[in-house]
């Protein structure tokens, strides 16, 4: 059972009221949330310190311009925050941040995490072609009725970790029939309770895992299975790899937006990986033709080797791909099997070390015997 705070406003207004309360009462020094700029033309994350700046905030808009985990890590890369900051983040963004903290790329100290049961986000292009605004009313209707929203990101439709386990405060969205007038906020940690103490609203107790959540879990799992079957990369072998990644133009956008790809200089952009003329020569002798830029499959396999253990499946990579490669589906699929092999679930527990930090004699003994 968790503490439940009921605010008699719609979820959007209720969340904003919570943020305003935190800022006005000086409980936090700042708030990081999504905000519209330039009269709704752009939506971006902002760090807000003045309560009046919150008027343009849209904390629950179904849109993810960046994975916030990466932004949070950049803020605390050198040293932890001195004063508390409240952060509105989606579950996958929190998981990404926790993965980064485990890799010494940030600190959890003084962050107050406000999250929600996540119905998903629309692809970035919806804000470019102006269809985002039209989609929002159906988004909330489907969320009320615990339905899958088919035009959200494929990664969102098939996401099975839509409950934010690490958040201090959880705004309940999925299956809340009355979310236009009622905002149910779970205060799942003591820290969350402390910060929200004194806000106007009813306090009660309720279980977060409702039957609607379970229903959604089942629907997402089905969708995930379907998506993996459609991509079907494991039965196609090398042909499948070339079919999917053959379109790649080598912009490296997927690694730039990936929250887990945190290296300042990527190996694939670095000097040891610059192609030398002599390499093409020996390749040509053997193959008779050479794809340019070369090394596409190498790049994607290499990225898999680096991040699949920590892939949290946010879907940013697919979203930015200019040639529509289903990267996140393939990475989630491969990630799932790698994570299973290492018995590891990324972004769940900050105390659980990344497998590539501890090495024991008794693990994977079957590999040396081959």
């Amino acid at each position, binding site marked *: 059972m968790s503490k439940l705070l009921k605010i008699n406003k719609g979820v959007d207004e209720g969340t904003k009221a919570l943020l305003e309360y935190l800022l006005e009462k000086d409980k936090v020094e700042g708030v990081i949330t999504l905000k519209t700029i330039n009269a709704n033309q752009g939506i971006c994350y902002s760090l807000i310190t003045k309560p009046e700046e919150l008027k343009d905030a849209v904390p629950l808009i179904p849109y993810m311009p960046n994975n916030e985990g990466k932004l949070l890590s950049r803020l605390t890369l050198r040293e932890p925050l001195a004063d508390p900051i409240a952060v509105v983040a989606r579950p996958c963004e929190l998981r990404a941040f926790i993965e980064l903290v485990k890799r010494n790329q940030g600190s959890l100290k003084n962050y107050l995490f406000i999250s929600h049961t996540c119905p998903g986000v629309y692809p970035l292009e919806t804000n470019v072609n102006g269809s985002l605004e039209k989609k929002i009313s159906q988004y909330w209707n489907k969320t009320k009725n615990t339905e899958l929203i088919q035009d959200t990101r494929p990664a969102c439709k098939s996401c099975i970790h839509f409950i934010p386990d690490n958040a201090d405060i959880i705004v309940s969205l999925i299956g809340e029939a009355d979310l236009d007038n009622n905002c149910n906020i779970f205060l799942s940690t003591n820290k969350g309770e402390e910060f929200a103490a004194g806000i106007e609203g009813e306090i009660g107790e309720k279980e977060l895992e409702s039957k609607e959540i379970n229903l959604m879990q089942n629907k997402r799992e089905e969708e995930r299975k379907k998506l993996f079957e459609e991509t079907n*990369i*494991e*039965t*196609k*072998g*090398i042909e*499948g*790899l*070339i079919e999917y990644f*053959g379109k790649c133009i080598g912009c490296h956008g997927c690694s730039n937006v990936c929250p887990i790809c945190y290296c300042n200089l990527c*190996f694939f952009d670095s000097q040891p990986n610059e192609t030398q003329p002599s*390499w093409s020569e020996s*390749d040509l002798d*053997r*193959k*008779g*033709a*050479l*794809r340019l830029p*070369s*090394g*596409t*499959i*190498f790049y994607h*396999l*290499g990225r*898999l*080797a*680096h991040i*699949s*253990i920590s892939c949290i499946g946010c879907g940013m990579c697919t979203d930015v791909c200019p040639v529509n490669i289903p990267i996140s589906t393939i990475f989630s*699929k*491969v990630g799932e*099997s*790698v994570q299973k*092999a*290492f018995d590891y679930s990324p972004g769940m527990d900050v105390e659980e070390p990344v*497998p*590539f930090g501890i*090495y*024991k*004699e008794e*693990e*994977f003994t079957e*590999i*040396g015997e*081959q």
Partner: protein
Amino acid sequence: MNKNFTPKIIYFMCNWCGTGGAESASAHHLYYPENVLPYRVNCTGSLSTVLILRAFIDGADGVIISGCHPGDCHYEDGNFRERKRVATIKSIIESLGLEEDRIWFRYVAHGEGKRFVDTTTEFNDYIKKIGPNPLKERSDT
């Protein structure tokens, strides 16, 4: 099985036990297949996953990695580090429907010249049996 197929095999060996094994083999005048190309690395723990992948992309038919026996590593856990990386690569390659058995990881100690020769011969025969790496002739990678 193609009789004319000579596989290209990359043998990553660590500076200590792996290379020592090869030295012992030469001291005993043992022969290993000529198509096995030995590459010395300081420790198998320093061998990155992408270099193993690169070997395949650049035309190797198989890769063997050999380091010190468990507990013998000169840097304490280098061989365990590499073992974990090999486990990752195998898991990735397998879930993409490719052949994970083109990578072998074996411990060869300094004095085990015979084991070095056995490993290379065994692996060479195995790769000959499963045929060439399909990636190496592809021009569209």
